[in-house]
């Protein structure tokens, strides 16, 4: 290749790479400060602890900016951060009571401004998005069907931990997953999550019947 041509190719590649980097780093629509200002003015009546819910953490920021498809380095940072923060039940048991899990999966209570002061425990609201027990026809489809989840995986021990971590913080395995971080956000306790794990993984659970 003639030297000049090579020079042009290299320069063009460099310019394109820089342009792509700038494009990716550029906010999609609005500057962060104008969005924050609009949010602040639009919830002017909310109490400070409620306004705090509108402030994004790093994971929310990255997932919003890249519309849940973050570049590899940022995706790896999310999974690393999420993995490091997982808390397990103090007794070490990742499989709780599937019957309690069954009721938590139906329960959509908690966290709305009409839910304070709390009148009952927070629920997992799993059926909003997942199929679980075949007898429950009112299930959503935003998440995958979990019917026969444990049975299909031969009730393997390793899957128990996987399911616990997936509920505690799905970003530990799938960066920018749609599912809420029910454990990391302290919406559910580690013990409640263990009950949900049993509902999905126990051979006695209707999910696997």
């Amino acid at each position, binding site marked *: 290749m003639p030297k000049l041509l090579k020079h042009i190719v290299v320069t063009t590649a460099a310019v394109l790479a820089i342009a792509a980097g700038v494009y990716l780093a550029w906010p999609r629509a609005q500057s962060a400060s*104008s969005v924050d200002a*609009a949010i602040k003015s639009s919830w002017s009546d909310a109490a400070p602890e409620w306004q705090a819910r509108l*402030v994004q953490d790093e994971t929310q920021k990255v997932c919003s900016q890249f519309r849940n498809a973050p570049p590899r380095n940022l995706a790896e940072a999310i999974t690393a951060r999420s993995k490091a923060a997982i808390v397990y039940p103090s007794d070490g048991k990742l499989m709780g009571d599937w019957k309690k899990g069954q009721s938590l999966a139906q329960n959509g209570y908690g966290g709305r*401004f009409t839910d304070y002061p709390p009148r009952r425990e927070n629920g997992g609201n799993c059926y909003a998005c997942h199929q679980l027990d075949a007898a429950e*026809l*009112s299930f959503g*489809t935003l998440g995958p069907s979990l019917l026969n989840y444990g049975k299909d995986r031969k009730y393997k021990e390793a899957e128990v931990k996987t399911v616990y971590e997936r509920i505690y913080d799905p970003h530990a395995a799938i960066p920018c997953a749609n599912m809420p971080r029910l454990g990391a956000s302290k919406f559910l306790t580690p013990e409640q999550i263990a009950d949900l794990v049993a509902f999905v993984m126990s051979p006695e659970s209707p999910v696997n019947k």
Partner: protein
Amino acid sequence: MRFGLSLAAAAMAVLLGACIAPAFAIDDTERELEKYRQMLKADPWSNPALLDADRGEALWQEKRGPKNASLEACDLGKGPGKVDGAFAELPRYFKDANRVMDLESRLVWCMETLQGLTRAEILRRPYSKANQQGTDLEALATYVATKSRGVKFAPPLAHAKEKAARALGETLFFRRQGPMDFACATCHADTGKRIRLQALPYLSKPEEARTVIGEWPAYRISQGTVMTMQHRIADCFWQMRLPLVDYGSDVTVALTSYLVNQAKGGEITAPAIKR
């Protein structure tokens, strides 16, 4: 304020589900739900929201407030008093207010400036509760929207502030926040999805936005009352575990601007009957 709309909707879906033999496959469940929706739409004159529209028209003409004025001089964007087709071109930039306004924030503006009512008075009861008559704002919004039935959405996008509002709405649509990490896009950026049995429109896809955005304000059978776009958005934020958003705020106007621009060319069918 009771914000149990979605809960009630879910409960209704569960009830409906219980009426259907468990042996039915999910496709049969979907078919039964569609049959139910069609029954609701069979006789358009049975729509109770038309009563709200009538009451809204009377309110529009009634002299009210300290200035004892009607809303007939209200400029909804096509000139003072011009109601026909105005809803199809909202949200838009209004020079007098120096901001982009949707129908409902514009109604508040006109009630403040023409009638001399205070914002606090106007917003004392913005949304009706279940099985109540629509509020004044709901009646007025339903009336104005009804005067654009059959018209296609054509929101103006020439002014810099209109462009900024649409762009802010798009950013907000994909913004994840709150204890559940939800964005609008969590539920409304894919096709054929459901929460429990409730079908979710893919609002960032123009084909789907065009069929649903023009349905609001709509009469909701599960609530027995009319619901406007402000209320619909506030209720989504409630479900996202966020605080109550201010009525006619920059955020709700921006989201409405984004949604209406996605729905550009879609026909206005308000007030629709929703489940």
